[in-house]
C-alpha cells in the first residue's frame, strides 16, 4: 500500500528517534571503552596514559570484586524467588471471585509507584530502625531483642525492601496472564477429578510459563542495576555492595575512571547476556 513517496517520508520520520538512540548508545559506550584502557584519575593527575588491560585485570582481582558479584546474585536471586513465588500465589488469589477486587488490586499494585528513595527511606527508618521502627516494637512485644536490620541482617533487609517494590510488577503481569487462561479447561479437569494441586501443576503453571520468564528477565535487567535502595540505606556497607554500586564508587567516589570504566564494561556484558534471552521472547511475539 505504501508508495515510494510515503516510504521516504516514513524513513524521514523514523530518523530522529534512530539517530538519537544511536548516539545515546554509541557515544557513551565508546567513551567507556576508551577510558577503560586508560589510567585516568581526574583528581590525581588526570590522564596518565594507556593502561592496556590492566584495569580489567585489576577490577576482577580486587578484593571487593567477587563479594560484589555474590551480593548482586544474591539480591537478584532472592528478589526473583520471592516475587515470582508470591506473585503466582497473589495472581491466583486475586483471580478468584470476591468482593472489592478492584480495590484490592489497587492496594497490591501501589508499591510499584512509590519512588525508590521513598520506599528505601520509609523502610529504613519507620520499619527497620532498631529503636523506633515498627519491627522493633513488634519484636519487643513478643519479648525478643530488636534486630539492627540494616547492619546485622543487611542482605535480608535489602531483599525485603526490593521485593516489596517489585512484587506488584510480578503480580500484575502474572494476573494478566492468568486471566487469559481458559476456565473451561480447568472446569473439565475438575470434573475429571483432578485435585487443585494437579490442576495448578498441569494447567495453570504451564500456562504461566511465558509470563514467568518475562517477569524474570525484565526484573533481572532492572535488579542488576538497583541503586537508590542501597544508596540511601547502607551506602554499600555491611556487605551490600553490588557490582553496580562498586562501579559507582570507583567512578564517582574514588574518581578512578579507568578502573570504574572497566567495571562498567563487565556490567554491560553481563546485562547483554540477560538481554539476549529477553529479546528472543519479545521478538517471537512480534511475528505473531
Amino acid at each position: 500500500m505504501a508508495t515510494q513517496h510515503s516510504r521516504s517520508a516514513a524513513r524521514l520520520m523514523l530518523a530522529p528517534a534512530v539517530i538519537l538512540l544511536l548516539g545515546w548508545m554509541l557515544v557513551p559506550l565508546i567513551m567507556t571503552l576508551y577510558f577503560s584502557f586508560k589510567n585516568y584519575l581526574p583528581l590525581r593527575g588526570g590522564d596518565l596514559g594507556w593502561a592496556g588491560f590492566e584495569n580489567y585485570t585489576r577490577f576482577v582481582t580486587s578484593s571487593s570484586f567477587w563479594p560484589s558479584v555474590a551480593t548482586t546474585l544474591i539480591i537478584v536471586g532472592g528478589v526473583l524467588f520471592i516475587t515470582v513465588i508470591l506473585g503466582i500465589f497473589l495472581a491466583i488469589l486475586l483471580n478468584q471471585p470476591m468482593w472489592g477486587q478492584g480495590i484490592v488490586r489497587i492496594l497490591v499494585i501501589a508499591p510499584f509507584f512509590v519512588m525508590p528513595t521513598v520506599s528505601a527511606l520509609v523502610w529504613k527508618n519507620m520499619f527497620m530502625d532498631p529503636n523506633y521502627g515498627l519491627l522493633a516494637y513488634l519484636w519487643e512485644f513478643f519479648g525478643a531483642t530488636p534486630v539492627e536490620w540494616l547492619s546485622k541482617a543487611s542482605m535480608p533487609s535489602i531483599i525485603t525492601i526490593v521485593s516489596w517494590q517489585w512484587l506488584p510488577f510480578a503480580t500484575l503481569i502474572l494476573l494478566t496472564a492468568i486471566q487469559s487462561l481458559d476456565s473451561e479447561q480447568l472446569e473439565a479437569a475438575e470434573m475429571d477429578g483432578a485435585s487443585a494441586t494437579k490442576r495448578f501443576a498441569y494447567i495453570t503453571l504451564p500456562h504461566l510459563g511465558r509470563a514467568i520468564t518475562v517477569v524474570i528477565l525484565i526484573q533481572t535487567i532492572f535488579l542488576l542495576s538497583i541503586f537508590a535502595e542501597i544508596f540511601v540505606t547502607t551506602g554499600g556497607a555491611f556487605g551490600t555492595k553490588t557490582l553496580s554500586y562498586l562501579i559507582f564508587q570507583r567512578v564517582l567516589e574514588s574518581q578512578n575512571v579507568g578502573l570504574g570504566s572497566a567495571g562498567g564494561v563487565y556490567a554491560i556484558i553481563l546485562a547483554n547476556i540477560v538481554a539476549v534471552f529477553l529479546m528472543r521472547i519479545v521478538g517471537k511475539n512480534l511475528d505473531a
Partner: protein
Amino acid sequence: MARAVTPQRKIINTAAAWAVGLAIFFPILWTILTSFKTEAQAIADPPIFLGFDWTLENYKVVMERSDYAKYLWNSIIIAGGSTLLGVIIAVPAAWSMAFVPSRRTKDILMWMLSTKMLPAVGVLYPIYLLFIKLGILDSQIGLVIVLMLINLPIIVWMLYTYFKEIPGEILEAARMDGATLKEEVIYILTPMAVPGIASTILLNVILAWNEAFWTLNLTAAKAAPLTAFIASYSSPEGLFYAKLSAASTMAIAPILILGWFSQKQLVSGLTFGAVK
C-alpha cells in the same frame, strides 16, 4: 469465571485477598498516617494507629523549609518535559514503523529495546563528563534529555503497539479521498491514537518521576527533583519521622493516583507487548 462459587468460598477469598492487599499497602498507609502525627507521636511506644491528634504541621514545615516547591517544580519539569519530548520524537517513528513497515522494522524495534538494557552505571562517567563539558550538569534540560533517551524505547514500543491496532483500511480510504500524508496524520491518526498516546504519556511520566539513578547522580542544588530531596533525609538530625512521612506522601501521592489509572497499560507497556 463461569464457575458457580459458594458464598463461603467467596467470603474466604475476599477476606484472604483483603488481608494480603492491606499488608502490602501497609507501609504506604503507615507513611500517610505518620505524616499527620506530631514528631513525638510518630515514635510513640506503643505505636498509635489512628488515635492521635491529627495535624497538618509537618506539611507546613516541609513546604517552608528547603524550597520544597523548587524540588517539586524540578520533578514536574523533568518528568513532564522528558515525556513530551520523547512522545514528539516517538510518534513519527512509531507511525512510520506501524504503517509503512519495511524488512528492517523488526530489527529496528529490537535494537531500540536493546538500548534500554545498557546498564546506566556502565556509562555514568561519560555522561557525567559530557554534561560538564556541555555545561548542563545539574540542569533541568540535561535531565530532560537523559530521561527522554532512557524512556524513548518504551515510548516508541508502546505507541507502535497502539498504532498497530488502528485498521489500515481507514488510512487507505482517506488516501483515496485525496488526503495528504500530513492531513492523514493530523485528522485521522491522531484522533484515533489519542487514547494510546495518553496512556503512553501516563506510564512514562511515572517512570521518569521515580527515576533515581540519573536524577541522583547528575543533580546537586539547582535541578534536583523530589527523588533527591527525599534522599537528603537519609542522614537527618533530630526527630524527623513525621516530616519524612509528609515529604514522602507529597512526593508519591500524584504518581499513586496516576498509576492507578494506568494499571491496564502498565503490563503491555512494561513487557514490550510480550504479555497482554
